[in-house]
């Protein structure tokens, strides 16, 4: 049985298009939802999470409507893209209440287990207010898995996470996939998705452009320089470590950050992680502006016409 079936599914926000005429089936496994910001990834994920209703067409999860059917939502775990949460609660309190609301009998134990799975045991009694972006992402993931759902919807779970935490979170998501869960992970960064799965769905301007193997799209994207923005306390240390690398096309200093343009993101991310560790650099945020992906998608859609 298919986990998700979208049949000519469309969603508008007034006159703004979210998703347009999407027909798509998800059988299982880890699937990467790839597209630039505003492509419609979050809209599609929110529809699967039961937060939005299709304007036209239908979208079912486990054969039912996630918007209307409580039993369907019981089988779904959702980690939203936004960072806002109840900051005055501790991580344990937050995850526990989420487990309790999902009907878990021993919610405290389930919450502790979920936080342990995300490597948050040491920080579980601290208030979310003081958490870094990486810790917030882990806590969000813990809220999504606390009730042991079959289907996980992770909306941009690696955004803003430092390179070391990123590797760790990727491994933890992979383990969930190996445990048999169906997982959808969205991102506007191909290299994040690629680290998790080779099975991707490319979404752009509200439409599913392509689905299948990651390698073809990667070839196209590799022809465009990839930009990585690192917000940290020592931008010059990062720049010095990467300045002589042959794949680095340009380094630009910004206030409290450094922007690196590279032709080989894999190597760049590896060297970046190494520079962070060796230099003792405190990274507060790491992002990948998606202009390059947008350019590739423009090229793809242009090619289709």
């Amino acid at each position, binding site marked *: 049985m298919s986990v998700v079936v979208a049949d000519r599914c469309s969603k508008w926000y007034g006159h703004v298009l979210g998703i347009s005429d999407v027909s798509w089936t998800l059988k299982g496994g880890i699937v990467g939802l790839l597209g630039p910001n505003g492509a419609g990834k979050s809209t599609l994920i*929110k529809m699967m*999470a*039961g*937060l*939005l*209703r299709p304007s036209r067409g239908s979208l079912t999860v486990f054969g039912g409507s996630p918007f209307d059917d*409580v*039993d369907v*939502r*019981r089988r*779904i775990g*959702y980690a*939203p893209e*936004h960072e*806002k*949460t*109840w900051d*005055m*609660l501790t991580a344990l*309190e937050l995850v526990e*209440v*989420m487990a*309790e*609301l*999902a*009907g878990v009998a021993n919610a405290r134990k389930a919450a502790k287990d979920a936080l342990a799975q995300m490597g948050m045991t040491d920080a579980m009694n601290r208030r979310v207010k003081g958490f870094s972006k990486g810790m917030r992402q882990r806590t969000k993931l813990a*809220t999504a898995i606390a009730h042991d759902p079959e289907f996980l919807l992770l909306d941009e779970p690696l955004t803003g996470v430092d390179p070391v935490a990123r590797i760790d979170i990727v491994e933890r998501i992979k383990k969930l996939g190996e445990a048999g869960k169906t997982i959808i992970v969205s991102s506007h960064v191909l290299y994040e998705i690629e680290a998790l799965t080779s099975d991707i769905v490319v979404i752009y301007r509200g439409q599913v452009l392509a689905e299948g193997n990651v390698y073809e799209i990667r070839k196209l994207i590799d022809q465009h320089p990839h930009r990585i923005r690192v917000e940290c306390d020592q931008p010059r240390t990062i720049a010095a470590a990467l300045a002589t690398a042959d794949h680095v096309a340009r380094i630009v200093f910004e206030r409290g950050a450094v922007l690196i343009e590279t032709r080989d993101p894999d190597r760049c991310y590896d060297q970046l992680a190494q520079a962070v560790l060796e230099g003792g650099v405190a990274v507060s945020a790491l992002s990948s502006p998606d202009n390059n992906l947008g350019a590739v998608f423009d090229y793809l859609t242009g090619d289709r016409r």
Partner: protein
Amino acid sequence: MIGTIARLTLKRLLRGQVLWVALGIALLPVVVAAVLRQSVHDPMERATFALDLYVVEMFVLSVVPAMFVASSIGEEIEDRTITYLWSRPLPRWHVTAGKLLALAPVAMVITLLGWLAAMKVGTEAVAPRWTLVGIAAGALAISMVAAGIATLAPKHGMALTIIYFLLFDVPIGEIPASLQTLSITHQARGLAGIAMHGVRSVPDRLTPAITMAVIALVWFAIGLWKIRRTEA
């Protein structure tokens, strides 16, 4: 599930600042009572303060439940933290009901404490029992209206609720015409047995109670209807 939402709501309230601001506003009648007491020395005359203080209490009733209920529901939707709740396997009305279950009693207790203290300070007497009933019922009803308004307009839920009561409900309650029936604060005053021109001799308490309940339930039902259709 409603109990869990209520506990979550209370926990957040206790760790936030709204509770303390609301307590400050609830003490406004006490300040007014102290000022009145300083200006009048005749104990018989002081006994008439009850009506003045009740007018101030209507202001408190217009503001405090809105601060709790409307801001809680409105901010949850605006901040998108509601997505955590709505993605859980529970009917959406549980969220609204849970918040009301937690916050309406707090609004009732705070307004009652302010009223009791004001009466003690101003008139040196214990507040009449029915005034307590009127204020408690008023706080509950206004909380339900606040839930409805905040669901309809989450971004400005608290402000709109306060504006609704201060610029519509309280003023029409003062108009000696049938329109005043629509005023919750007017009905709360009727339930308390306090009329425009003093304490009624034979007050009818059933009509104001039923009318207040109907108005509050209509607003609450509008809120529940809207929340079923709201998308996050």
